[in-house]
C-alpha cells in the first residue's frame, strides 16, 4: 500500500469513527435539501439578476479580477446564510435588493475599472445578502449543511460560467471599451439597472 493510499485510508477511518450509521446507498438518504439549496437561487429573479450582473461585471474586467469571485462569492453566500440562521437576521427589504441590482447595473453600464479588492468586497457583500435572503426558505426539517452546500454550489457554478462567457465575449485584453462588444455589455448593464429601478418603484408601490 502506498503512503498516499494509507493517508486516504486513515482519513477515511477518522471520518468513519466520527460518523453515524451510513446508509447502504447514497440515494436512500436525504439529498433533497442539497438540491433545494441549489435550485432556490436559480429560480428567484433577484438572485439570478445579481448572479448574472455580477458575473458579467467581473468577466468584463478580465480574468485576473474575475477569478477571485469563484471562491469569494460562494463564501459570501455561506456566510450570509450562516449569519441569518445563527443570529436570526431578517432578509434585507425588497427596496435594498432593488437598489443593489440598480447599482450593479450602473457599474456595468459605466464600465468602470473596479480594483480587485473592491470587486471582491462587493461580491462578498452581495453574496451575504443573497445568502441571508435564501435562509428564508429554511424550515426546521431542513438539513442546513446540505442546503448551504447546494446554495454555495449553485452560486459557484453560475458565477463561474457567467464570468467565463462574459470574458470570452468581451475580450478585454485585446479590444477596447469602445468596441461593439464592450458597448453590448454596457447595454446589458443599462437593462439590469432599468430592471433594478422598476423593482425599486414596485417595492415602494406595494
Amino acid at each position, binding site marked *: 500500500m502506498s503512503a*498516499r493510499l494509507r493517508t486516504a485510508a486513515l482519513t477515511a477511518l477518522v*471520518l468513519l469513527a466520527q460518523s453515524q450509521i451510513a446508509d447502504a*446507498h447514497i*440515494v436512500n438518504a436525504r*439529498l433533497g435539501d442539497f438540491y433545494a439549496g441549489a435550485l432556490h437561487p436559480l429560480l428567484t429573479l433577484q438572485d439570478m439578476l445579481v448572479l448574472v450582473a455580477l458575473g458579467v461585471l467581473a468577466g468584463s474586467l478580465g480574468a485576473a479580477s474575475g*477569478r477571485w469571485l469563484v471562491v469569494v462569492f460562494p463564501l459570501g453566500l455561506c456566510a450570509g446564510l450562516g449569519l441569518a440562521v445563527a443570529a436570526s437576521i431578517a432578509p434585507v427589504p425588497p427596496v435594498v435588493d432593488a437598489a443593489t441590482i440598480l447599482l450593479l447595473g450602473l457599474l456595468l453600464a459605466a464600465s468602470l475599472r473596479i480594483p480587485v479588492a473592491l470587486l471582491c468586497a462587493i461580491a462578498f457583500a452581495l453574496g451575504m445578502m443573497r445568502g441571508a435572503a435564501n435562509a428564508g426558505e429554511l424550515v426546521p426539517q431542513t438539513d442546513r449543511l446540505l442546503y448551504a452546500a447546494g446554495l454555495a454550489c449553485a452560486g459557484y457554478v453560475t458565477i*463561474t460560467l457567467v*464570468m*467565463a462567457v462574459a470574458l*470570452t465575449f468581451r475580450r478585454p485584453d485585446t479590444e477596447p471599451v469602445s468596441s461593439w462588444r464592450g458597448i453590448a455589455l454596457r447595454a446589458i448593464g443599462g437593462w439590469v439597472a432599468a430592471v433594478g429601478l422598476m423593482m425599486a418603484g414596485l417595492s415602494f408601490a406595494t
Partner: protein
Amino acid sequence: MTVARALLSVVLALAGLLLARPAVAHQATIAVLEFREMRAGVYIGRWTTLPKDGANRIDLRMPPHCLLRLPELNCGDKGLVGQMTIANLGEDMSAAIIRVTSLAGETRSYTISAANPVVTVLGTDAPTLDTWIELAKTYVNLGIDHILLGADHLLFVLGLIWIVQGGWRLLKTITAFTIGHSVSLAVTAFGLIGVPEAPLNACIGLSIVFVGVEIVKQQRGEIGLTAKYPWAVAFGFGLVHGIGFASALAGLGLERRILPAALLFFNVGVEIGQILFVTLVLALIWAHRRLGAELPRWGAELPAYAIGSVSMFWFLSRLVRVLAAA
C-alpha cells in the same frame, strides 16, 4: 481546471458524508385489502385482514384519478391504473397485500412493503398509449433522480473525466460506462443475476477508491490502468454500478409485462442525468481555463485525496455493514 474538479469533489464528498441516518425497526404486521370491480372503474373494497391499529390510520394513496372513500374506490373511465402506495408504512404495519378482482373475475395481488413501497397497477387492456406516457414520465424522472442523487455514481464519473481529460477518449469512456451499467441493469432487473445490496454497495465504494488511486498515479507521472484502457475500466465498473441502479427498480413492484419498458425509460433517465452532469463538469473545466482559476501547486493533489478519502469512507462503512450482517 483542477479547481472545478476539486470543488465538485468536495461538494459530492460532503453530501455523501452528511447523509448517514440510522435504520428504524418496525413491527411485522401484515394487512390485506381486497377490491372487487362492481362496474367499469368502480370497486368495492374491504379489509379482510385488518391492520393492527385499525384501518383508519392507514394512509393509502391510490392513483391521482381515483377517488377512494372506502368501501368505494372510483377510478372512472381510466380504471384502476397507476401507482399505489401506503405513505405511513412501517409505523404499525410492515406490509400490506392488495388484491384487485376485475369484472372478468381475474384477481391480481400486489404487496406493498418497506422493500417494495410502491406498486404499479396496469389495466387489463394494457399497455395503452396512456400507459406508455405514464411509464415514460415516471421512469425517466426516476432515472434522472437516481443518478443525480447518487453521489457515489457521480463521483466515479467525475474521476473518469479527471483521468481521461475530455475529447473523443472521454466520449468513448463514458459510452463504455453507459453500456456496462445498461447491460448489468437489464440482467439484474430481469432476475438473471442477483447480488446482495450491502456487498455491492461496498464494491461501488471500492470502484471510486480505485479511480482516486489512479488519479494520484497520474499526477505522479505513472500510467495507470485507467489511463491506458479507460473504456475497459469504465465498462467493468459500469457493470457494478448498473447492478446498483437496478436496486432502485427492485423496490417498485413492477409487473413483468411492463418491466422492459420501465427499464428502458429508467435507463434513458439515468443517461439524461449523466449527460447533464458531464456537460456541467466540462463547462466548468472550460470556464476555469478561461478564467485561469487553478489551484496552487501545493493544493493540486487535494481533489484526488478528497475523492480517495470519501470513497474509502464509503467503502469501509459499507463493509462494516456487510460484516455486521454476516
